């Protein structure tokens, strides 16, 4: 089972839910931090890291001794990563999406395979939790390939929790793709609602089941609740604002360790997730037998 924890708006408590849920479960679980631009889960989990792996993208370099300046590679490249002049061939590795097209079309064997470092993947553990995250190299623009590499570390058969990046564009899609359920963490404010609507549209585009966690549920107004009711999106958990939570978070500590009631909150959240998935399976089976 793969559960992704996402949110349109940043700073709503995604990482808090992901880390506390993983620890509260107390059973073998893997936590993949796919927010590779700003990975934070390790700051709260403090796993023992035991492996670090550089991640590269294959990019081309052109061998001037072989190149005939025919221009085929430039034509196939949709990302302007190659320029061919009458007597020179240039590549711009930082623009390359590593689609492999130029390698396929060059008939002169002039394409040399080079690498661009996009980040690292680190693996660690904390008790029964296996932890993996990616760190995008500062200055690197393309997060999705690194996110896909983090997800390739998934050990199937073990419950997987994915901490997704904020927003609704391609990095979120890369992180959430293939999940069984998406948990959207939001807050009941106008910004929270606006970004939630965008995130719901994105999750629905992927045709995945979803549920809400409303954090700081007693600030702001009721528009998020009304929206959820209107759209028939189940609210799995509401957490009121609590200064102690904010302070615990600021110090980098886990709620489940400082505030005993959080263990129950997280376990009830997990039950709701399981029930939703079970309900979804039943609905599907019923629809199938009809």
């Amino acid at each position, binding site marked *: 089972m793969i559960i992704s924890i996402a949110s*349109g*708006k*940043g*700073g*709503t408590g995604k*990482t808090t839910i992901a880390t506390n849920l993983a620890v509260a479960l107390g059973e073998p679980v893997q936590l993949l931090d796919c*927010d590779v*631009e*700003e990975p*934070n889960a390790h*700051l*709260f989990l403090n796993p023992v890291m035991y492996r670090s792996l550089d991640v590269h993208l294959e990019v081309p370099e052109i061998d001037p001794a072989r190149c005939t300046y025919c221009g085929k590679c430039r*034509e*196939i490249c*949709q*990302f302007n990563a190659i320029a061919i002049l009458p007597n020179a061939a240039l590549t711009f590795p930082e623009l390359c*999406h*590593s*689609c*492999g*097209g130029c390698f*396929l*079309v060059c008939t002169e064997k002039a394409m040399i395979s080079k690498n661009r470092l996009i980040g690292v993947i680190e693996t660690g553990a904390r008790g029964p939790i296996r932890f993996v995250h990616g760190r*995008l190299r*500062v*200055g*690197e*623009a*393309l*997060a999705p390939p690194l996110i896909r590499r983090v997800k390739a570390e998934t050990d199937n058969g073990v419950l997987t929790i994915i901490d997704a*990046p*904020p*927003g*609704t*564009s*391609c*990095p*979120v*899609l890369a992180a959430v*793709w293939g999940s069984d359920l998406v948990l959207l963490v939001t807050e009941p*404010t*106008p*910004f929270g609602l*606006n*970004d939630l609507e*965008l995130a719901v*549209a*994105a999750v629905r*585009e*992927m045709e995945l089941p979803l549920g809400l966690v409303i954090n700081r549920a007693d*600030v*702001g*107004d009721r528009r998020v609740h009304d929206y959820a009711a209107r759209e028939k999106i189940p609210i799995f958990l509401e957490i009121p604002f609590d*200064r102690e939570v*904010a*302070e615990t*978070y*600021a*110090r*980098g500590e886990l709620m489940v360790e400082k505030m005993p009631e959080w263990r129950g909150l997280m376990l009830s959240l997990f039950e709701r997730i399981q029930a939703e998935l079970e309900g979804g399976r039943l609905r599907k089976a019923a629809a199938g037998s009809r």
Partner: protein
Amino acid sequence: MHELVVLSGKGGTGKTSLVGALAALGRQQVLCDADVDAADLHLLLDPDILERHDFYAGHRAVIREDSCLRCGECLDWCRFQAISADFQINPLLCEGCGVCWTLCPAKAIDFPENLCGQWFSSETRFGPLVHARLGVAAENSGKLVALIRQEARQLAEARGLDWIITDGPPGIGCPVIASLGDASAVLMITEPSISGQHDLERIAALVDHFRLPSFILVNKADLHWPMARAIRKFCDVKGYHFMGYLPYTRDFIQAQVEGKTILEYDSNNQIKQVVAGLWKKLRQEIHQLNPPEPSKATARAARP
């Protein structure tokens, strides 16, 4: 012309609320919401949309079933696993690299342009606003950021406005990189938490890549003073301009609920003073760092 880009790395630190407050302080500016995949600034500024434009970027491949030979070559070529075993291309996974389209032996693949969103040119009570809405699960947010910043610049030039205030995207990836080229300075707003500090270090390192002057403000400072002070120290060590602390207050949210900037929501004088002081200091520092250039027209005229 000066462009101040406001960034946070981490989300939820109050970036958009701060941009709204800066907007409320002046009139001689163009506002630009470059947080294109979760744009919120319009919720505070209630814009009258004057122009809407579709934003096309890149392409998506589509297989024409009746022409496809089912040779299976494209499955091998596609590095993004976008083509299924029954020769359907998933538009959400297609990277738009065009390899299948170029190489398909039957020329059975179309490659239409991709509608990635919309952008708007609007008027608000604090001046013009250029903003956008990225399509659902769309790509090319970096290109959209570059485009609306360009539009904001042209608008500022056309109206003779000196400042652009840009609400930047979160993170450090493609849209953030697109928000930094040619900016005058970057204001980073963070919060005193272990993740706020961690994310600030990464975004500040990115801004250093661009050799832009960095100004840093700590919001919700009283939630954890030791960390707030640690961030101040970090600024001193790294040579970033530390701009001060803001207290934690629910007024930001209450103002948001009423569709107002914090400066129009009149319960909190302390915030008003800090923000007004901040803006004054920022303007002075940025003017000093980027002395006004001769305008393009005079520069052109001076050329032989």
